[in-house]
């Protein structure tokens, strides 16, 4: 009986140690479907070692071509911020960023606006650092070229999850999908 107990404790300890090591190597960044790199392979081999079966490829991506950094950065932020929104909702989010770039009260470049500390959740939580979706790339290009479903909005938020009370005082000028848009 005592022997059995001892074996159980030892095996638990080993699992514990293994987990600690496992956590420490994968701590570096969050992994999603579509992400690739040495850490992904490491996780895959570890999962395999632990007896999990994994799909043939976690990574599945196609290519695209854009003619400007702005479109690429914009498509990534649209992907992170408006995944699951309709196409017009994605163009609208892109248009807000383009409107900010043109507005004197915001930074003058797409990068400046997107990476303003705390301005976008997708940048803070790392969603931005994933490849953009195809529809986000199209939406970004439309937004850069002037398509603006919001009619000049500078802010948007999801009424269900918005945290800042101050933002509600802005005049709302459109509601598209889950977002409200304001000046």
């Amino acid at each position, binding site marked *: 009986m005592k022997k059995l107990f001892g074996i159980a404790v030892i095996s638990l300890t080993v699992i514990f140690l293994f987990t600690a090591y496992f956590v420490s190597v994968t701590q570096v960044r969050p992994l999603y*479907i579509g992400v690739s790199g040495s850490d992904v392979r490491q996780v895959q081999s570890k999962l395999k070692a632990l007896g999990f079966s994994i799909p043939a490829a976690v990574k599945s991506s196609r*290519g695209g*071509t854009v003619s400007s950094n702005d479109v690429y950065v914009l498509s990534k932020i649209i992907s992170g911020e408006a995944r699951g929104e309709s196409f*017009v909702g994605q163009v609208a989010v892109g248009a807000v960023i383009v409107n900010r770039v043109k507005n004197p009260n915001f930074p003058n470049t797409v990068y400046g606006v997107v990476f303003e500390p705390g301005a976008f959740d997708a940048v803070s939580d790392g969603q931005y650092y994933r490849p953009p979706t195809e529809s986000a790339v199209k939406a970004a290009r439309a937004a850069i070229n002037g398509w603006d479903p*919001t009619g000049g909005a500078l802010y948007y938020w999801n009424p269900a999850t918005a945290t800042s009370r101050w933002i509600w005082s802005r005049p709302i000028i459109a509601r598209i999908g889950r977002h409200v848009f304001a000046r």
Partner: protein
Amino acid sequence: MRKWVYWVLPGILTVALLATGYWGYTEYYARQNLQNRAESQYQKSFHELSWHIDTIAGQLAQTLISSSKEQAILGLATIWRQVFAAQEDLGALPLAFVPLSKTEKFLSDTGDVSYALLNRTAQGQTGLTEKDLKTIEQLYQRAKVLREDLAKVASQVLDQELSWTQVEVSAVQANGELADNTIIDGFQLMEKKMEEYPELNLGDDFTPVKPDVKKIRGNRDINATEAQKIAQKWWFPPDDKHQARISYEGVGDIPTFGIEFPPVENENVPVYVDVSKLDGTIIWAMKPKTVGNVTLDLSAGERNAKSFLQSHGLNDMVLVEVDQGDGTGIYTFVPRQGDILLYPDQVKVQVALDNGEIIGYEGTPYYMYHKKRDLGSPRISEAQLRKQVSSFLNVELIRPALIANTWGKEILAWEVRGSIDTEKFVIFYNALTGSEESIVRITPPPKFDFNIEG
């Protein structure tokens, strides 16, 4: 014999505990390290900001007391540069949740004014006028307040070891109010002082010209049903059975009905048409589709775009720009009055280069600005202009055009397109005075490939 078992377990657990402790410590250390790095970035941006504002205030005063054109130019150039740097620094600080619009407006006004005055003084014969000095004086008064308030915050940051990462983490409290934080309070106080100043009176030259849409477009409001009919007729053939619905209403710069049609055959994204409430004009439209293999070249697409515009009553449009990507071409056209190109009134048409279908239209500027204007004629002749153009520029075309400056003021200009080496430029010369209004680089940006998630 079995006694050693009682020692093995605690032994292993002790090792495990030590390992975990070590791991935890390195994690903590790494986190602390990152936080310090973020903090030092913020500190740098903040102290630089306060230094730039101080320099701006000083240079504004210096420009006021200078009596030579050369000194004025130097002062204005410094201000312009320092404003740019200050804006960068402000954008790098975690203040996105703190309303600072007046402070930001002050910076952009100062930048715009200094740049415009710099341009004029550099090209003109005289230095700053009495009116200019009055504008600079107003800017100086505000810069002085900013400088003092920022210096106060700066001394608190230094003296009380205030943390910017703390601002970042706890700027917004659980109840949505801004946190009670010395740094945030300092910035809010500064903003309040800026608000108390009356609106800057920058004179006619620097006051934005707003288009009077109602004057151009009349006052007849349409209702939702009319809007749907107009959208249907505009995008689809008359016998089409697509059922439209109002997707959203916009009350922004242009009040509109957003009309949505179900996706066309073999597609899964709806078709959108935005119709103005004022007179039922199509503001923009898009029919997103999956573009197949590209079979058409850009000029074939251009022909389709042009005939599309003609079929919607937009005749005599001139192509001024093409942007190719995603198997589509986005063509920018401007209308003409006589032989003068009207740049403020542009429209864009997106053509799929697989079958030539029109998949997008953007006519907001055309809607807001297009009207018959009293343009006059250039006072500088084309022959005179040719002598003035730099000999380094390989001139491709010269034509008269109407452009709008930073403040929306319309200027009759000569448009000169040309290239030097691999760089392409459009230069606009004022057609009345001959001065260079602006030089725009139109070299296409480098293309690159990237992964998309699918």
